[in-house]
């Protein structure tokens, strides 16, 4: 493990006791309440200045159904960390990272489109890849595979 990641792991031991290295990426599972604080520390204290992505994983049947996954990169030390947090289906809400990274504005919209995660503090969660009027969240495991929501009525018959 690189020096930086070892220092991150040591410092985050309280917030992320289960931190581990996975294929060269330090994985930090944290509670939703601590997310903003941990990410802020990563950005200001360790130079993780590039917010790469936010996505989610759907675990149907698990008590905390959605795992929200963030990736950060340090352009100073060339290392990555992955931060994970879990939320329940009834209230899939996490804090928005917009105060820390402006690019979160768009990436959180996509995650909201696809999984229905609500980002508290992101004022603009309009559809970005989907369209107005689309019902449901297509990357959730319970979205029917062949369910389509056409915007244009189909022609009779075919060509």
């Amino acid at each position: 493990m690189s020096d930086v990641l070892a220092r991150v792991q040591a410092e985050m031991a309280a917030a992320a006791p289960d931190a581990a290295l996975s294929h060269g990426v330090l994985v930090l599972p944290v509670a939703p309440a601590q997310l903003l604080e941990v990410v802020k520390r990563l950005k200001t204290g360790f130079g993780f200045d590039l917010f790469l992505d936010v996505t989610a994983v759907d675990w149907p049947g698990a008590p905390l159904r959605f795992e929200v996954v963030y990736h950060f990169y340090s352009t100073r030390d060339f290392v990555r960390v992955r931060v994970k947090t879990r939320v329940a289906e009834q209230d899939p809400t996490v804090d928005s990272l917009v105060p820390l990274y402006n690019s979160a504005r768009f990436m959180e919209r996509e995650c909201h489109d696809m999984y229905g995660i609500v980002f508290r503090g992101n004022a603009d969660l309009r559809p970005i890849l989907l369209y107005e009027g689309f019902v449901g969240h297509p990357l959730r495991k319970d979205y029917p595979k062949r369910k389509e929501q056409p915007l244009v009525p189909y022609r009779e018959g075919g060509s």
Partner: protein
Amino acid sequence: MTAPAKTIPIVRAEPSRAFEFISTKKDELIGWARKFSLFPYPFVTACCAMEFMAVSSTPYDTDRFGAALPRFSPRQSDLLMVVGTITHKQAPVLLKVYEQMCEPKWVMAFGACATSGGFYQNYAALDGIDKIIPVDVYIPGCPPRPETVIDGIMQLQERIARQQHPILTKEF
């Protein structure tokens, strides 16, 4: 005294009266003209675009079939080439472009995605453009080889040559 310069005499021959008229059918004549002046509107959305570039530029050159001058206004074009995946989000745009084209107009579904949705069978992709607009020629392949596209253009040309070309339409 200098000799007068030699000039070449201009001979005004009487024009021949042979082959001054030909007889043909109106539909054949117009069909022949139209099939060699297809102005395509490339509606290019996905990876098939690479093959579209290959087929429309030098080595294959759709200009040999009179179909190389892309018009980026639907009002000036005759052939809507739908090249690539059409998503449900894009479908209204495609329909609008089709409706803006003036008659006569033809539609080509270029590649598996435009023909049937290809391997995309999910919430996002339209299962073939013929769900929303009529299609005249389908080109198979993912992406199609340039030869396949040229074959498609030639089949469309044959179809145009055999079509009726009314000069006065009902609305006119």
